[in-house]
């Protein structure tokens, strides 16, 4: 890894959305970085640019200006196809609404990313099984999402993110749809993963979740106002 220090590094990134003649500046020259094995929280009120930052880090969107280095590689101006490759190989997503495909069972949902990667069928199966085991859902691998609780669905989403052994996992309000007990379990799972070396970035507005992060960035109006912890 270039520099050996930072997995994610943004340098003066701006994101402007054009809505007709109206322009909305979601991020205003943001500098942000994450080190390998770090557990980072991003907090802020609605409209502060948390999700936009998350989407840019997750290669779902491009910044209007500035530089974004992922694993030391500048991806500010790479093609849509290469962005897809980055998502397939380097990033795992966990969403607030779980984002599982309802007609697939647990195993099939976890196996989806391998459809877009180069692993053989047997290798994909092995990795998917391993990820399901890590989140403790081996017994339920042939259940459909509709037969699972909210916490279990989020575990499936985490297993799907983990299965491809990504550079980092991005979680957008991962406990937003869960009760407090289930939320604790999910946070605990994140902590376990982090202890095993997984780099995590979590967007949240829950202090309980943020309290487990090593570094917390506060975003207001597209700018980081302060950061706490080890950053």
């Amino acid at each position, binding site marked *: 890894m270039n520099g050996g220090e930072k997995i994610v590094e943004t340098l003066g990134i701006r994101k402007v959305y054009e809505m007709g003649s109206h322009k909305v500046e979601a991020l205003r020259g943001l500098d942000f970085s994450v080190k390998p094995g770090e557990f980072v929280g991003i907090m802020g009120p609605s409209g502060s640019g948390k999700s936009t930052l998350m989407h840019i880090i997750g290669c779902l*969107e491009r910044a209007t200006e500035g530089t974004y280095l992922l694993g030391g590689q500048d991806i500010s101006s790479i093609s*849509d196809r290469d962005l*897809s*490759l980055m*998502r397939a190989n380097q990033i795992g*997503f966990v969403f607030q609404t779980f984002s599982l495909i309802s007609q697939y069972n647990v195993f099939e949902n976890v196996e989806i*990313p391998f459809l*877009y990667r180069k692993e053989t*069928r047997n290798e994909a199966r092995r990795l998917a099984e391993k990820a399901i085991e890590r989140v403790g859902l081996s017994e339920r691998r042939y259940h459909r999402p509709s037969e699972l609780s909210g916490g279990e669905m989020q575990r499936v989403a985490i297993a799907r993110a983990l299965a*491809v052994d990504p550079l980092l996992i991005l979680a957008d309000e991962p406990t937003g749809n869960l009760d407090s007990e289930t939320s604790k379990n999910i946070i605990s799972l994140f902590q376990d993963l982090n202890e095993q070396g997984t780099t995590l970035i979590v967007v949240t507005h829950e202090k309980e979740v943020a309290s487990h992060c090593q570094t917390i960035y506060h975003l207001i109006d597209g700018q980081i106002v302060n950061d706490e912890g080890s950053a």
Partner: protein
Amino acid sequence: MKWDKILRDAWRALFRHRLRSFLSSLGIVFAVMAVVGMLSIAEGAKQEILDQIERLGTNSVIVRSLQLTKAQEADPRRRLSQGLVLSDANALKNTIHTISNVAPVKEVKASLPISIAQDPFEILAVTESYQLAKNLTVRQGRFVSVTDVVRKNLVCVLGEEVSRLLGDGGHLGEALRLEHRTYRIVGILHKRQWKYSKSPALAVRNYNRVIFIPMGTEVTDVHEQTRFGEISEIWLRVARNENVQACAEAVRRILNQKHGGVEDFQVIVPQELLIQAQKTQRIFNIILGCIAGISLLVGGIGIMNTMLASVAERTREIGIRRAIGAAQEHIVVQFLCEAIVLTTTGGCIGIILGAGSAVIISKVAGWKTVLTVWSVIVSILMAGGVGLVSGLYPAVKAARLEPVRALRHE
């Protein structure tokens, strides 16, 4: 790409909305059914016609005597022509050097023995060359010979069925009484395949039901039926296929001259009929192609509509797939596969129904139908092609969705 998984997913997505998938593929089902059914009928008709033309012989030219209408009979020019006569056959043989065989035929009307009088048998007065002209093969004895014709021997050759129906009287050496004369049976033909033809021009005789006698032996008995020397047909065999057209033209010219322009004969050229049949077939194929094209277009619009609905309701799924690494081409392939699986399945059902309807038509209407491998392949390819074309726009539309917007879609 992991094609097995992509195809399985496509199948599952379609099966999940099976009623919608079924209804939207009905257009393709009926289009392919119509194409396969019509191709089977067309192929059957084509084979039947070609078969009959082939049996007439593509290197043959046939001259048939025509009955004149009352108006033509009243025409003074009528007196210039004796009708189709034996000397016409000789004139053609002597004038046109590309002709290898000339076989004059006279249909004879004579009373038959009582045992076969009820059946529609034909008596033909022929020369020895008729055997070669029609490729007749003798099972027992021999065919009418040159000597029989020259000496006017009272001998006859029987078709297989005639011999069979005559029983003991139908064997070699037995006597057969036709009108007031007794003919000796000198030959019996092999059984020959025969099919009824609706077209008089293509009608082929059923040689199993024919009694052959030497040309000239019939004159004494039945000369009052026709004018002296008048014959029914002349079969001409041309040595080389490429000379058939020129030979037919020469025949028309010579006979017109000999008959003083009286149209009391008809020249049939199987090769011309073959070309005509092929032209008709081409026109039929074009019409069929247009019908199939319109049906498939309508079917394709239905498929496109369904795929657009599918893309709209699965926008979030597209967002999820994009977020976890699917490139635009993966999404295009996924939706294209669904469209192709949908139309190809519809095509397969259409082929089964089309083949079934061809069988029913052949049983009910008595038409010959033939289901060819190429019509099945063409139908499948057509159905798949419609899936490809009609699925392309929805698939590209799906792939171009912005991942973030697609993810936010409820």
